């Protein structure tokens, strides 16, 4: 079964292509949905990207979508089968955050992101695996086991939105949602060879997104192409009165500017992003991608983001500090995991949290609580916030002379499962190129730019606040000239 106008099988087609096929009546949403459900049944045990598959609900939504399309009430996303990172609350469906703590928790309400996508007529195939509470860069920290990289199943898919990236790469969903606190959309997108966008902080509502670090978390689309990401962001973005940090600012049509020529685009290459620690082969892939942009008429200039080397340290104070408070509500009292036969209140707290959380989550809670402690606050938390402002200043200064900043998304391609399991610092350093944008609240995107040893490598594009359209335009134009985003792993 495939779209007769395309030689590609359904699950290799982009959201835009499938949207066209649905609107033209060449395929029904029920057919599409069933195709993906069948693939999930066939392949999920190898990839482990789904925690929950909502088959019945998906087919019902697909039927409703077909009715809407037939009635002429369809949006461009109507009938498209998606899957969501398992930290978006979905009413009536388990929302686990990859944690034993919430293995028994069925959300009684819907997140704004998934609600917006449902309202646009999309189908939800299920909920996707992730690092527990979005803490990790390899998807090894999940109560539901590691996700495997569809390009090489011995490798990690990246994290924390590892399930979201792997599902798209493996053709188990047309597109997915992810969240990005320090690189959790872009880094797995890079490692799985897909397109992932972290919007500006405040562009997308955080309501119903289980918080890791509130001042850094942002939801975004993960898809095959920049065009697909633009179509999704059109629906995901927007003001939400339920999130005080969400900006009341008009949402442009992100698809409208995709075709703008890039002639004259000023690209900045931060010298700190091409420094020690960057895999030489990855660097070559990125340099080649930049050369492609020069062919499109962009100009390139070396810039400096001098505080880059402080970003990991600042991040690993601020994010755990916020997390230490955000995760206090998981206390075994009202919802989630509760230990057996607590003998008193203290025992209830200690064992429910001790048994319910995995070790990386506990590490970060302890780091965060320490950084906020009396006598340490100024040395850690207050200082990290100062660095955060300086990092933001670096970017704002850079954007006075360039339109976008480009560089590698991650210093290496995907690494073997278990390789960094006992070296948290090595794991944390993998976030060095993505963390700064979260600290500065900027939008960042990863687009497939080539391969190293058979594993995908992503180019990161960073823009000024609320310039998602510029990033999507740059990504789309690159994808008109290259076919890296069209490569698929053998099984997909």
């Amino acid at each position, binding site marked *: 079964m495939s779209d007769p106008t395309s030689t590609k099988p359904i699950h290799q087609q982009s959201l835009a292509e499938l949207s066209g096929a649905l609107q033209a009546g060449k395929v029904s949403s029920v057919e599409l949905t069933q195709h993906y459900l069948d693939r999930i049944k066939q392949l999920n045990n190898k990839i482990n990207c789904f925690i929950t598959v909502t088959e019945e609900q998906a087919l019902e939504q697909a039927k409703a979508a077909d009715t809407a399309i037939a009635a002429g009430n369809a949006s461009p996303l109507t009938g498209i089968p998606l899957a969501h990172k398992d*930290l*978006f*609350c979905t009413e009536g469906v388990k*929302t686990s*955050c990859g944690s034993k703590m*919430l293995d028994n*928790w069925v*959300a*009684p*309400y819907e*997140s704004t992101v998934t609600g917006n996508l449902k309202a646009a007529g999309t189908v939800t195939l299920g909920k996707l695996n992730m690092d527990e509470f979005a803490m990790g860069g390899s998807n090894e920290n999940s109560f539901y086991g590691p996700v495997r990289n569809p390009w090489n199943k011995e490798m990690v898919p990246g994290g924390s939105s590892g399930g979201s990236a792997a599902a798209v790469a493996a053709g188990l969903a047309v597109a997915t949602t992810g969240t990005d606190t320090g690189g959790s959309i872009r880094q797995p997108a890079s490692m799985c060879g897909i397109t992932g966008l972290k919007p500006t902080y405040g562009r997308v509502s*955080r*309501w*119903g*997104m*289980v*918080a890791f*670090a*509130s*001042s850094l978390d942002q939801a975004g689309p993960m898809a095959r192409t920049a065009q697909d990401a633009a179509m999704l962001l059109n629906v995901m973005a927007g003001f939400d*009165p*339920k*999130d*005080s*940090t969400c900006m009341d600012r008009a949402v442009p049509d992100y698809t409208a500017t995709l075709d703008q020529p890039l002639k004259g685009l000023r690209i900045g290459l931060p010298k700190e992003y091409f420094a020690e620690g960057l895999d030489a082969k990855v660097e070559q892939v990125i340099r080649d991608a930049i050369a492609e942009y020069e062919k499109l008429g962009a100009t390139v200039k070396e810039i400096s983001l001098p505080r880059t080397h402080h970003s990991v340290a600042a991040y690993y104070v601020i994010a755990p*500090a*916020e997390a*230490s*408070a955000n*995760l*206090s*509500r*998981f*206390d075994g*009292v*009202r*919802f989630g995991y509760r230990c057996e036969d607590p003998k008193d*209140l203290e025992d209830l*707290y200690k064992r429910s949290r001790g048994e319910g959380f995995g070790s990386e989550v506990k590490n970060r809670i302890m780091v965060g*609580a320490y950084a*906020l*402690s*009396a006598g340490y*606050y100024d040395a850690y*938390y207050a200082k990290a916030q100062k660095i955060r402002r300086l990092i933001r200043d670096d970017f704002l200064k850079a954007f006075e002379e360039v339109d976008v900043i480009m560089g590698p998304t991650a210093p290496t391609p995907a690494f073997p499962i278990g390789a960094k399991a006992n070296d948290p610092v090595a794991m944390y350093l993998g976030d060095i190129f993505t963390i700064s944008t979260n600290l500065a609240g900027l939008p960042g995107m990863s687009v497939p730019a080539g391969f190293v040893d058979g594993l995908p490598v992503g180019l990161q594009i960073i823009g000024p606040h609320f310039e998602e359209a510029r990033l999507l335009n740059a990504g789309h134009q690159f994808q008109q000239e290259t076919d890296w985003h069209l490569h698929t792993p053998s099984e997909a």
Partner: protein
Amino acid sequence: MEWEAVIGLEVHVQLATKTKIFSGASTAFGAEPNTQACAIDLGLPGTLPVVNEEAINMAIKFGLGVNAEINKVNVFERKNYFYPDLPKGYQTTQLDKPIVGAGTVDIALEDGSVHTVRIHHAHLEEDAGKSLHEDFAGMSGIDLNRAGTPLIEVVTEPDMRNAKQAVAFARKLHSIVTTLGICDGDMSQGSMRFDVNVSVRPKGQEKLGTRTETKNLNSFRFMEAAINKEIQRQIEAIEDGFEIIQETRLYNGDTGEARSMRSKEEANDYRYFPCPDLLPVVIDDSRLDKLRAEMPEMPEVRKARFIEELGLSNYDAEILSGEKATADYFEAAAKTSGDAKLAANWVLGELAKTLNQNDTEIKDSPVSAEMLGGLIARIKDNTISGKIAKQVFDALWKGEGSTADEVIEKKGLKQVTDTGAIEAIVDEVLAANQAQVEQYQAAEEAKRGKMIGFFVGQIMKASKGKANPGMVNQLLKKKLG
């Protein structure tokens, strides 16, 4: 040695918003447990707070009401600790940048002087739920209806020197927040709760002694007793050679017993940090101007007006201006009656006594201010005497009529002012008491005043109280010579 106590207060004032400080759930008191707690109040994963602007407005009004600076950028922080009735594991409150800065509240002392208590600051925060330790067979119940109710915590400087001053301050604060309409002032429902910080030092010494904090006092009476008890305890301890330990204490108002709850060493490290889910609250001038324009007359100003415009005594004005409900009642009664002094006497006298006897709040008085004003007007125009007026008041209280005029008419209590009719009664009484008449006429002038009372009493009795006492007096003097 002569000792001096030093007292500072922290007062939790529940704001009278319709909904909670960070959610749309109702704040009404007394609902079934956990029926007024939404996903946000329960701290469900993924939920986010949105500040109730009305709570901000009320806090600003409080600041304006105590002559304080309003911090135009103020910040909510998270105060981290675990407790079952604290759903998120942190309380959202303010620390470094509270909404209300330094201010002042004046209190009247018994000697008639005015003492200024400085407000250190007041901050906005959310209340916790309630833990119920009874009725659950060895377990505890959690009621989260109160979780998220907006509070302002008012923190004073240690400017009070005895329990009476602390109570005077507390009463004044009660009057300020009820006048502003930002708190219902119902202490029995926990709308105002007091924490008292107490230390003692030898009189004349500058350095403060070690203080203790007694938490959660919810009546003026308990507060006064708790402070006095704590002052006494500290003095005795020091005189016996012990040191005061900085600690948090509890006072049981019902038993009058106090005990230590936790020492400073056991205190939590709350790990405060700015709440990343909330932006700093920014207050612009136009908002301040608008709220300033909405400010009601504050007790201080009202008291001055009662003295200057209505001619009340300092004492009467202080009491009548103290509580908004009383002040409003008095003003309405004064206006209807046209006699402020008489109205003051009635509100502070007969009305206060009857309210007290019936355990009724002035706002629930069956005799409205207009009814009382109408009654006083009839005293003023001599339709009835003061004595008869009490009968009319009783009848109005019991619902035997909706106006004084109606009761007077129905019961035939109208005062007799017809000279002929009164003269007939006077003559009758004098004739029946010839012996007393003779005694009176034989008496010295100085003793006659008292003796004439006898005749007045007899005449009033004969007239069933309806004879105009002034006219009776006049006629008697004329007839007795």
